[in-house]
């Protein structure tokens, strides 16, 4: 029985890790621009497609991938490049011209972009579900694996997500670029006076957030499959996770994502009516927001004069 509990816990953690990766994109963009990038779920979906297509393309052109780890790494790399380009374009085309407009304008723009991406992928790739090369997945079937409560794929997803998040934490707290990002999020006018290229920092935030979503997309595609509408529900859950952790806070998004994943999975295991797991997750969200309106790790909003 404890084995099943641990198994469930790790399902929750690996699911939460993908929520966390997506939630980071929401929270970082909110941090610098104060807007919710509702097209972010679609960037995640594009990442899943990019990863699947990169591997399928490599297989078509006869590139033999020697190790499944190399294949997954290659897929992640391809997806990151593609999504970073999409993220930068998205910011340049859909948000930058509206930066000084009413905040609702960029929100509507975001929803428009999200609908555009869903239909674009549907037309370009069809409505059917796309799956990761089965060869990559089945390479893990016969592998000697010491942990009974965690499947190899689950382990890879969790490990990769944690590594990426650790790298992000290092980048934001220890590098000059990270310092610039934090400065822009605190006060863009002051940051520009101090000589920080604000436009580039904002574009960089989109590139970074989109890259994280791309990693999540490939990892989810590896464990499951991809379809043009997958970004909607995942985006909604990740946004919830970002709010739960305190929107604008990077560690908050990580914590919120993990927490949401674990609550959902424990809910679907131990609730008498498992399909109410989403209701449970949202009840917890409402409860936390009642006690801490800014989220678990969010800072109280200071009115800037």
């Amino acid at each position, binding site marked *: 029985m404890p084995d099943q509990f641990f198994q469930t816990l790790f399902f929750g953690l690996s699911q939460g890790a993908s929520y966390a990766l997506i939630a980071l994109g929401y929270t970082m963009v909110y941090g610098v621009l104060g807007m919710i990038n509702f097209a972010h779920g679609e960037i995640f979906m594009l990442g899943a497609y990019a990863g699947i297509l990169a591997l399928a393309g490599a297989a078509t052109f006869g590139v033999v991938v020697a190790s499944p780890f190399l294949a997954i790494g290659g897929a992640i790399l391809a997806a990151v490049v593609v999504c970073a380009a999409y993220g930068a374009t998205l910011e340049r085309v859909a948000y930058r011209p509206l930066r000084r407009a009413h905040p609702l304008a960029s929100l509507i723009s975001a929803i428009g972009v999200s609908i555009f991406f869903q239909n674009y992928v549907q037309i370009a790739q069809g409505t059917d579900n796309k799956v990761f090369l089965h060869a990559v997945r089945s390479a893990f079937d016969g592998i000697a694996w010491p942990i009974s409560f965690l499947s190899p794929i689950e382990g890879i997803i969790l490990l990769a997500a944690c590594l990426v998040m650790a790298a992000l934490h290092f980048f934001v707290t220890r590098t000059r670029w990270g310092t610039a990002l934090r400065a822009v999020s605190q006060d863009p006018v002051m940051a520009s006076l101090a000589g920080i290229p604000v436009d580039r920092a904002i574009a960089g935030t989109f590139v970074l957030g989109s890259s994280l979503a791309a990693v999540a997309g490939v990892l989810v595609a590896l464990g499951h*499959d991809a379809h043009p509408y997958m970004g909607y529900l995942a985006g909604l859950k990740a946004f919830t996770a970002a709010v739960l952790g305190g929107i604008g806070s990077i560690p908050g998004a990580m914590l919120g994502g993990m927490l949401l994943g674990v609550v959902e999975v424990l809910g679907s295991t131990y609730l008498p009516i498992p399909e109410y797991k989403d209701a449970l997750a949202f009840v917890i969200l409402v409860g936390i927001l009642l006690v801490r309106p800014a989220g678990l790790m969010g800072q109280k909003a200071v009115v800037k004069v």
Partner: protein
Amino acid sequence: MKRATLITVATLAAGVAFAAEPIRIGVCGPLTGDQGKQGQDMLHGVELAAAEWNARGGVLRRPVEVISGDDQHDPRQARSVAVKMVNSGVAGVIGHFNSSCTIPASDVYTENDIVMITPASTNPQVTDRGYANVFRVCGRDDQQGRVAARYATDVLKVKMVAVLHDNTTYGKGLADEFKKGLGAGVTVAYYGGIVQGDLDYKAILANVKAKSPDLWFFGGIYPEAGRLAKQAREIGLSAVLMSGDGTIDPEFLKIAGPAAEGTICTFGPDPKRLPSAKAFLATYVKQYGEAGPYSIYAYDAVNILLEGINAAKTTSGTKVAEAIRNREHHGAFGSITFDEKGDVRVSPYVCWKAEKGVFVPCDAAVSAR
């Protein structure tokens, strides 16, 4: 001279009437989204039939025009698509696909006296509400669930099962009928729903695995069925998966990959074994590629509708429904007659099994009684 002009004008008017007043037929179902493949299959079946009628001179000397409506398997969307169909003046509708959409949409069609024939909705409630204008060319879930349960108890001899469903009218309905059909000799060790559209079901599957059933049943559609099968294998749940006519699609095999092997589904008989379906399949393959599971049902449904209009000599829903009910139809699936509810009188559900990447009919036959 005057007479000649009159005749010319009359002929011209008739010619204009032929061009301007087509008989419109609606096709409604999930044309886009994750179930888009099923909707497109339906649409292709209907378009093929409409083209054949037009080549023969149309219906009541009017051309047949196909109008499609996308309900995205959302019941609310289905209702507004139904209103759109009514406003475009359709003489009849082929659809919808999901029972949860067909039922609310049928209210709209009934209020507006429009005939609706669904090629795929199997929930008993579709025809049990006494609507005279509602028909279906597929079977019912109470029959289907019984056949599945019989197969599980008599052929597979299972003693303990787990039952999952996707919380839709169709999925939960089918799962409940299956459960009902099992009888006292079989224990249902787990019963629960999943959320449609979720990507990860491993936690629920781990619960199923903990009960170590001989078989697990899923009431739902192929995207979720495919994910469930794949993840079940991943966590080491090796019991046989059984499902219904929503799962039997090549897409299921693609999503589940090697994990699909051995899955059993209830569905109608194999059209490839029917001599009456030969011509349809040959033309379909040429135009659209391999026929989907529901292409042939949609093709038969629209032919029944157009023959009904032809026989009734009007597009009035009540008269067309009467004509459909009183006739014997010879479609690609063979002879079809309807009972007073609008169900087909004979619906021979059989079991299919996924073997080496394709669904093949099982040889062992069980009766629905």
